[in-house]
């Protein structure tokens, strides 16, 4: 992914090809970033908002991107950040403590017209929503996107050992939830 992203950065470096860089960036990352955000905020409209904010931030900051991490890592970090910021905003708008945002998300899941999963998939999503935020993000990235721990480590700035522990705990909690709610 890192080698692939060099073309975007090279196109962006030249003022005359910056628009091409943007098109390529959106084309390549629109879907993965959408799904990264969607699994955090659940609702499609909120995801759309957060995705737009993500690309705005990326577009504004790409000039100062220092290549300390890969572009992929940087984009995912911004997308995750935007998703979490949006959740905070929604909690504030609905006058609910952020700790209880999972109830809000659970309701959002139930009423989401763009949820096509069956009963067991819905139950899995509800189980995921009971997890602490970071475990939820780690679980989604590993379970659904099969992302490597090294990539996740770069995005979430957490040790590989810590991520493995988070994932392991998340799996156990979800299995327990499903067992108790079956």
């Amino acid at each position: 992914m890192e080698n692939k992203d060099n073309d975007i950065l090279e196109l962006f470096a030249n003022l005359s090809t910056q628009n091409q860089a943007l098109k390529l960036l959106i084309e390549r990352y629109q879907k993965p970033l959408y799904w990264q955000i969607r699994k955090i905020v659940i609702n499609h409209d909120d995801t759309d908002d957060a995705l737009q904010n993500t690309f705005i931030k990326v577009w504004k900051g790409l000039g100062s991107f220092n290549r300390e991490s890969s572009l992929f890592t940087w984009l995912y970090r911004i997308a995750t950040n935007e998703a979490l910021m949006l959740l905070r905003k929604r909690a504030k708008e609905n006058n609910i403590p952020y700790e209880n945002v999972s109830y809000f998300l659970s309701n959002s899941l139930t009423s989401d017209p763009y949820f096509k999963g069956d009963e067991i998939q819905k139950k899995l999503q509800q189980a995921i929503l009971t997890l602490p935020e970071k475990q939820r993000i780690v679980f989604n990235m590993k379970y659904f996107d099969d992302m490597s721990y090294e990539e996740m480590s770069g995005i979430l700035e957490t040790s590989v050992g810590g991520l493995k522990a988070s994932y392991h705990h998340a799996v156990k909690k979800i299995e327990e939830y499903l067992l108790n709610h079956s």
Partner: protein
Amino acid sequence: MPKEINIENNTHLKNNPFAVPNDYFMTNKEALENMLFTQADFNIPTDYFENNALFIKTLTKKAEQEDLYTTPDNYFETLSENISKRLEEMPNKQHQYKKIIFINTYVKWASIAAIITGIILLSWIYFFKEKNNIYEQPCLTIACLSKKDVIKNIDEFDASDIEDVIENTDTPPIKKQSADTLQNNLNETF
């Protein structure tokens, strides 16, 4: 109700259950491009990019506390193997464990038996002493005397009483009688 659920090998659950409106990615791509090309003045917080990772950490700070404990590399990968190894070593330990259980059970029953024996012994000593106490006390009635005692100490009695005294010594114990028998005896007497 299932006893165990394994989500990691469930391919159905791994499918993405979320959907998007028709042509969303197509139209969104255009919308994003238009938005970014046409609107140049977006306000971004100062140091947003410098602190981006920090934001995520702050936002997930509470959850972070649960991750204070990490595991050594490859801990979970080798966990099942390590458990299998330990299980192979188990038979000897199991034998030892059974022994401990036996000793513990033995001690428990021995303690209970000792307590019961102690209670019986103390009760016996107590009642035995009480009984002795009864006999140790002076009787002070004629009924407690035997004929031998009367004959031995015959000088102590008045001649007129001797016949009555002899008659009332060595009194047999009162037998348990029914109420009817007692009534009959009374009727015969009076």
